[in-house]
């Protein structure tokens, strides 16, 4: 059923807000502002009582599915449980009610947390120095590439190195970030085992390559066994190695990107380190680099001088700022709390269990769905619906059918190199019972694809709205509410 918009509930004269009586002389806008500075037409904000406001957004929340509502195997997004204690400590007034321009001596706790978090991120990745400024994974990618560019320029090779190599299995943000950094994107093919095809790589590698961006395990959930060789090929040509940390959940405590030869990486703190995704954000895309790239990090950098923490802006080779202030601090608090809860043992257990869970579900499902790359996966795996397509049932239909069974759908139609892909990432926080229930649901859907394909083709049937028309939405966009004509 459709729900009215908050604007449609508005009645002239109602209000939720209250403000103190003005205790200074009122300024008439007509006196203190020239006519050209004044607003002509009032904005039509809704007029609603507080109870109706609360009911409106509460009702909206009931029409939304999060990790707390059920299993969310959205591949590449690491939808693990978001610990409640992290929410509580991040909401402490000592973290929330501080201004970024307060004198350093009044924010030593915040700076200490950032410093320690940066050190933890370096240890976990095998890197030397971190910047917490990027707001999200894609922002971290862009920042990392800017650092790579600054490094090449510092060696007089900026003009020459114009290309960034990206595997065809990469996240869309990789080529987009490279382009946003002014690079030309060269795609390299995957081999039959799902890794980077070394011959294709050797063909495109030359002294005009600035970097190769690699997600490892990649978006197929497969560890690229040739990681070390890939690093050698790129390094020998003078290029640098960028590690997309979206899939760090598979390897924390087991292998470190720095030890595999990568020079810079970004984390998705909102994936690996349990900060919630907030319905799309905010995230934290912290980056960490090897020592030779540290001079190029964005300013400011949090440093420790004696027992004092400072923000250092005086780094002459820095790429500059990539965002206002210091990053999404509140998300850092959650990531830091998570790392400190788990410690080294806990983090390793995260990777081991995430990989165990994925392999368990994969093993159980490969009898019913096509598994294009049949080998041990890491934290996620990709199956496709080629067997179901014969009955007219596509990946999109399977995803919608899962919604009816109270599961979130996997990531679908990605990676692009697998037709009708379904990318399933269970994460480590799901119990065997939950995984078994999901497996059962997927098996049931596979059976329905043969016996009753139309049930799937018209799914979902039990959600608050049915399948939505995305074609018309894109062709004739209605991106805002407008009052009905009187």
């Amino acid at each position, binding site marked *: 059923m459709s729900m009215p*918009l908050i604007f449609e509930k508005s009645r002239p004269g109602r209000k939720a807000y209250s403000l103190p009586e003005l205790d200074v002389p009122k300024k008439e806008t007509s006196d203190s502002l020239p006519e050209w500075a004044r607003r002509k037409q009032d904005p039509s904000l809704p007029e*609603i009582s507080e109870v109706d*406001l609360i009911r409106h957004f509460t009702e909206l929340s009931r029409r939304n599915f999060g990790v707390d509502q059920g299993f969310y195997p959205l591949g590449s997004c690491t939808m693990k449980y978001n610990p409640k204690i992290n929410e509580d400590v991040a909401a402490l007034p000592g973290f929330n009610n501080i201004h970024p321009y307060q004198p350093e001596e009044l924010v030593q706790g915040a700076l200490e947390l950032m410093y320690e978090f940066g050190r933890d991120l370096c240890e976990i990745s095998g890197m030397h120095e971190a910047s917490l400024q990027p707001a999200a994974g894609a922002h971290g990618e862009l920042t990392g590439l800017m650092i790579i560019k600054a490094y090449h320029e510092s060696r007089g090779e900026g003009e020459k190195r114009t290309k960034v190599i990206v595997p065809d299995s990469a996240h*869309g943000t990789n080529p987009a*970030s490279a382009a946003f950094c002014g690079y030309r994107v060269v795609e390299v093919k995957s081999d039959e085992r799902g890794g980077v095809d070394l011959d294709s790589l050797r063909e495109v590698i030359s002294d005009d390559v600035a970097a190769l961006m690699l997600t490892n395990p990649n978006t197929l959930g497969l560890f690229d066994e040739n990681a070390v060789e890939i690093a050698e090929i790129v390094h020998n040509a003078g290029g640098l190695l960028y590690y997309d940390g979206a899939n760090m959940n598979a390897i924390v405590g087991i292998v470190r990107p720095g030890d595999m030869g990568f020079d810079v990486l970004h984390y998705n703190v909102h994936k690996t380190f*349990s900060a919630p995704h907030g319905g799309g954000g905010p995230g934290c895309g912290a980056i960490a680099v090897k020592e030779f790239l540290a001079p190029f990090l964005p300013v400011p950098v949090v440093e420790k001088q004696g027992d004092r923490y400072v923000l250092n802006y005086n780094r002459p080779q820095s790429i500059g700022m990539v965002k206002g202030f210091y990053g999404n601090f509140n998300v850092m608090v959650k990531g830091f709390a998570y790392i400190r809860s788990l410690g080294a043992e806990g983090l*390793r257990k995260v990777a081991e269990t995430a990989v165990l869970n994925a392999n368990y579900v994969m093993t159980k499902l490969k009898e019913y769905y096509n598994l294009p790359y049949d080998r041990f996966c890491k934290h996620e795996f990709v199956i496709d619906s080629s067997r179901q397509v014969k009955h007219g049932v596509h990946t999109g239909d399977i995803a919608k059918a899962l919604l009816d069974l109270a599961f979130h759908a996997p990531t679908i139609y990605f990676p692009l190199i697998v037709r009708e892909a379904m990318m399933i990432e269970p994460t480590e926080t799901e119990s*065997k019972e939950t995984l078994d229930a999901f497996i059962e649901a997927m098996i049931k859907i596979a059976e329905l694809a043969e016996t009753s394909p139309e049930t799937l083709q018209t799914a*979902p049937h039990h959600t608050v709205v049915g399948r939505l028309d995305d074609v018309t939405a894109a062709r004739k966009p209605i991106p805002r509410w407008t009052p009905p004509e009187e």
Partner: protein
Amino acid sequence: MDYVPHTNEDRSEMLKAIGISGIEELFSDIPSEVKLDRKLDLPPPMSELELRKHLSELAGKNTTTDDMVSFLGAGVYDHYVPSVVKHIISRSEFYTAYTPYQAEVSQGMLQSIFEYQTLMCELTGLDISNASLYDGATAIAEAATMSSRLTRRQEIIISQAVHPEYRSTLKTYAYNLGLEVKEVPFTDGSTDIEAIKELVSDKTACVILQNPNFFGCIENMALAAEAAHEKKALFVACVDPISLGILAAPGEYGADIAVGEAQGLGIPMGFGGPHLGFMTCRQQYIRQMPGRVVGETRDNQGRRGYILTLQAREQHIRRERATSNICSNQALCALAATVYLSWLGKQGIKEVAEQCMAKAHYACEELSKIPGVERMHRAPFFKEFAIRTPVNPETLSKGLLESNILGGLPLGRFYPELSDSLLIAVTEKRTKEEIDGLCRALEGLV
């Protein structure tokens, strides 16, 4: 402490089902020479109790704006955050969800973003809003690259009276994209419109001004827009959404794109983030807009619903030809702003803006009575203004802290030539008593 539910029995059953004897076999494809042969060097794990204590200790090392009376602004403002905001954004149906890719089970988030987009269009007087950007600084950078694509021009003109960190961020982005950034000077705190006219040319993609600007001065945006349009460049207005309760909307003075920082709309200062970058634009530019956009549509039974739309602009479809690389945005902050603006409503947004302005003007008048203290600029202002003081502002700020007053931003930090000036912000939260307290404390120091 960890959050793994498996018992040993679960684990062995699962290993058996996979057909292996130990978990390490699942990692056999990682070359052993690069595998970590030790434990990570991290402090030992903490129980929930220990963690709460540790984090509370760290938080306790910060002095908060609850402990001081703050007149510090400069892009981040101590506005009141009503209780309703926290209660709604703490609903885990919202905060533990991912991006609403599966629309049928994400109608709550999608509809709230649709409402957010409508609110931002209303406030800015423009046609289209996206679902959010990281912050005010990156929103300016995105507006510049968007303008460059729309005009196929490579030059960005920005006023030196725009927030220094926004300009700094813009320059980082622009440098890497090969865009040239030219800065327009200000005179008496306001952007020099004549200088814009001289600089703008048929190479100019856009002209960017902030209103009120970094010094709190209200700019003559219409004249700047006219100067930009004269050469068919776009005009980008960076605005404070709270000010739009009374100040002219970007749509009213001819802006093509409006951007800004919406932290003031129900989001805590939080040491600088997460905040809320926003962007709205005219209808004809919709397909070059960066970031997610939610649109209304119908389901297979004709019922109204909402969906992520125009995705052909975005990185997951368009890859290196996308309008931006942005993926995760600031969705939960946009929800906070939606709740906040709904709480204020049509009257509240006006009243909060009027109170800010009245209190800031009262503070300015009272401060100006102190011998040797004067407002620096003559332009009209809203909630922030700069004063010149006979004592070094850094010394002054330290002195004010003795009276538990966070006394504003010494401008020398960003403008060495203004090292005798202090930027003071006054929101609706400040009382007459607190303002009088500032005046008394300051008078004692000069």
